[in-house]
């Protein structure tokens, strides 16, 4: 069994408990041990990438360092993943910043990006393998047309995140095929869901999330999946559409026959 450090992040403890629970149970079934670091803190939020200030990077670096000795750091939430992976990318290319962070944290030696960061989807693709996953599916999503919604944080900036082609991604579609479903390609799959704008302009948030849901539904989708708690919120609460929205981990657990187990 391979052991990875698993970073859930704040939302997975509150609003997105499903995303977390299904991720854990599925990993176990797939032979991956996810170990949560003790006393983990905030991923660093949106601040890390906005400025050169070392203080904003500390939280992400602390998380990255906690996984230094494991096979890698696994994240699920799109936002956490984006922040942590970008910080890892930046610090591996900026020795001066690495040194400043070292001084702030009082480290013996600077952290320079040694940890490999995996999004849970990358774990499925690169460690488990989609073919392998397919062979373990018990309840395939036969005849289900599933639309993958990437949102903005999962793929961009593409150089730092290096997950997939930002304009023509395939990782979630390949995942859908692995669990027996039929992926639906639609124009809005990597456009914005409205993001935090829901806090101050409901109308804009509605316009954006509705465009996504409309685009997917018009292409024949039965349901839509995402990796991001904020996307899920916008698509569910602001779009006005009644098409079901799920976390990808929920479908994964269901396909692996674990959904009831996780709900207990």
């Amino acid at each position, binding site marked *: 069994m391979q052991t990875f450090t698993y970073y859930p992040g704040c939302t997975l403890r509150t609003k997105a408990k499903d995303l977390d629970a299904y991720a854990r149970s599925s990993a176990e079934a797939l032979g991956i041990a996810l170990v949560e670091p003790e006393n983990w803190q905030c991923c660093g939020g949106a601040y890390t990438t906005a400025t050169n200030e070392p203080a904003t990077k500390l939280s992400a670096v602390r998380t990255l360092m906690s996984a230094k000795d494991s096979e890698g750091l696994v994240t699920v939430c799109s936002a956490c993943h984006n922040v942590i992976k970008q910080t890892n990318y930046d610090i591996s290319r900026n020795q001066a910043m690495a040194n400043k962070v070292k001084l702030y944290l009082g480290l013996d030696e600077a952290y320079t990006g040694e940890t490999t960061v995996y999004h849970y989807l990358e774990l499925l693709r690169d460690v488990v393998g989609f073919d392998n996953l397919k062979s373990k599916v018990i309840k395939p999503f036969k005849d289900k047309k599933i639309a993958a919604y990437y949102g903005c944080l999962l793929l961009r900036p593409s150089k730092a995140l290096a997950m997939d082609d930002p304009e*023509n991604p395939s990782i979630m579609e390949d995942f859908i095929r692995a669990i027996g479903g039929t992926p639906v390609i639609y124009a*809005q799959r990597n456009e914005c869901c409205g993001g935090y704008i829901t806090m101050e302009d409901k109308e804009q948030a509605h316009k954006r999330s509705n465009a996504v849901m409309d685009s997917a539904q*018009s292409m024949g989708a039965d349901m839509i999946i995402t990796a991001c708690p904020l996307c899920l919120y916008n698509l569910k609460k602001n779009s006005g559409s009644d098409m079901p929205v799920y976390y990808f981990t929920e479908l994964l657990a269901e396909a692996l026959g674990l959904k009831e187990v996780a709900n207990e």
Partner: protein
Amino acid sequence: MQRIGVFVCHCGTNIAATVDVKAVAEALSHEQGVVISQDYQYMCSESGQDLIKNAVKEHKLTGVVVCSCSPRMHENTFRKAAASAGLNPYLVEIANIREQCSWIHKDIASATDKAIILGKAAVAKVNLNTPLTAGESPVVKRALVIGGGIAGIQTALDIAEAGFDVDIVEKEPTIGGKMAQIDKTFPTLDCAACILTPKMVEAAQNEHITIHSFSEVSAVKGFVGNFTVTIKKKARFVDETKCTGCGLCTEKCPMKKVPNEFNMGLDNRTAVYIPFAQAVPKVATIDPNYCLMLKNGKCGVCSKVCSVGAIDYKQTDKFIEQKYGAIVVATGFNPIKLDKYDEFAYSYCPDVVTSLELERLMNAAGPNGGTLLRPSDKTHPHTIVFVQCVGSRCDDSKGKQYCSKICCMYTAKHAMLIREKYPDTEVYVFYIDVRTPGKNFDEFYRRAVEQYNVHYIKGMVGKVSPKADGKIDVQASDLLSNEQLHINADMVVLATAIEPDKSARPLATMLTTQMDTNDFFTEAHPKLRPVESATAGIFLSGACQGPKDIPETVAQASAAAAKAIGLLCKNSITCNPCVAHSNELMCNGCSACEKVCPYGAITYQDKEFRMPDRTTAIRRVASVNPAVCQGCGACTVACPSGAMDLNGFSNSQIMAEVDAICK
């Protein structure tokens, strides 16, 4: 004892205004071996040259230094002058005190000092110069043209016109290239096929031209005037000499679901096929990836219906070897793949097409017989959006940094043709800039805007979203009115960037020619030698050298032909004597020089040597082919034992120059 003459040129005021030429002449007169040192207003003029010639005779000079402009400019002039006075031309050295001194400096005192130092270096070198004699090598009077598009055809026709044999090697089953796929040509709107196919036929009928279709160059050996080329004639499973092109096999072939390359995959062809009606040679080809007989051994229909027995399922690739004096590269271009541009929905929306696909959709011989219909539901499109610069002028890693040059004009052509034929169709063109330099080009574009009311909008399309009702939402910005636009379109046409054909890079390696970072062949000089490659005897024709429209391609094709004819006219060519040679006694056979030689001029031979103790030993030593060597000097630097040296630029000469500069 050397007797050297120094001649310092004023170049009018070009040099004399910044360099004290008299002081230079005076200073150099004290250098070792210098017997005469003069200055003159224009050394390259007839009287200036006479000055040199007379001095050579009068003072019995053994070496000449001219302090003047770049050797690229007048080295040849002064070498000729010296030769006419009886001095070996390779005993003349140029000190460049114009481009490398007077033009780039302002201070007279320091410029003069620098000119003196450059002069001293040249004197130090000429002291060690030895007379060199250029060798000769014979020229095979036959040319090879690689690529049978309009560029290759034009080059071949021109070379044949001059009376030389010329072979065209084309990798597709027919010549014609991209131009054969185009519907109309700008700015005159004449039909491309009507002007191209007569040329294809002319090439086929010309007694001097041999067309190797469905063939590729697989190896190139030799050098200018004497190339040996291996041509792979790919198995087409049809005997070219027997096939009459009747087309019966293509009608009867049961395998009818093969994407038709000629129509950009917009319809299907059969497994045995003739690419298009005017193909040259008009010979069928069997596609082994789809042919049921070749795949499963079951079918054989084409063989049964062929009345002349041309079908040959057992045919294999054949290799032929041929000698050529000159090679012309005309490998052309392709539109780029659009995988990285899925914001335009190209990969999953059939009504988003490239411009070349639109050419086929509008062509009378295309999938819809010339009626413009949407590929998805075969309905007439009422709103069409053109997006320019898709993949061109990109500053990121996705596309090409360069302008593809032809898109502005063909997009204007498409827009105009659609408005002409279907006046009820609204046409929008999104552009960054409209670039129309060329004869009658801007007038053409203005006509599209003013006469045909095509909506030109400055701005780029951000997102193309196919909708459930079959319409396409095109989201774009209008930069002039600073507005977000949503256009409800029926079709979107992407003016896709063009790139060199994929076959170009391996070919460049075989030919030892240079390419730029975009895989376009590099010309020998961007202004003065635009159709020659840096490798002697290799010429460039058409879009393999850079994006070009048809008139420019044809002009360059003829220019390349003229250069090739110039070479083929000679019975032998004078070789550059400034080539490398190996001191076999010092060579240890390590292959370092062979590895760095970009021209393949160095080979290794086992030679018998007499050893000091009167025995003989076989040693592996380097040997340079002087006809292939371009005198770049890479081997002399790479050689660890100092056995490689360059005539005219020997290690000792270069060290003497360095010493003179540092003294």
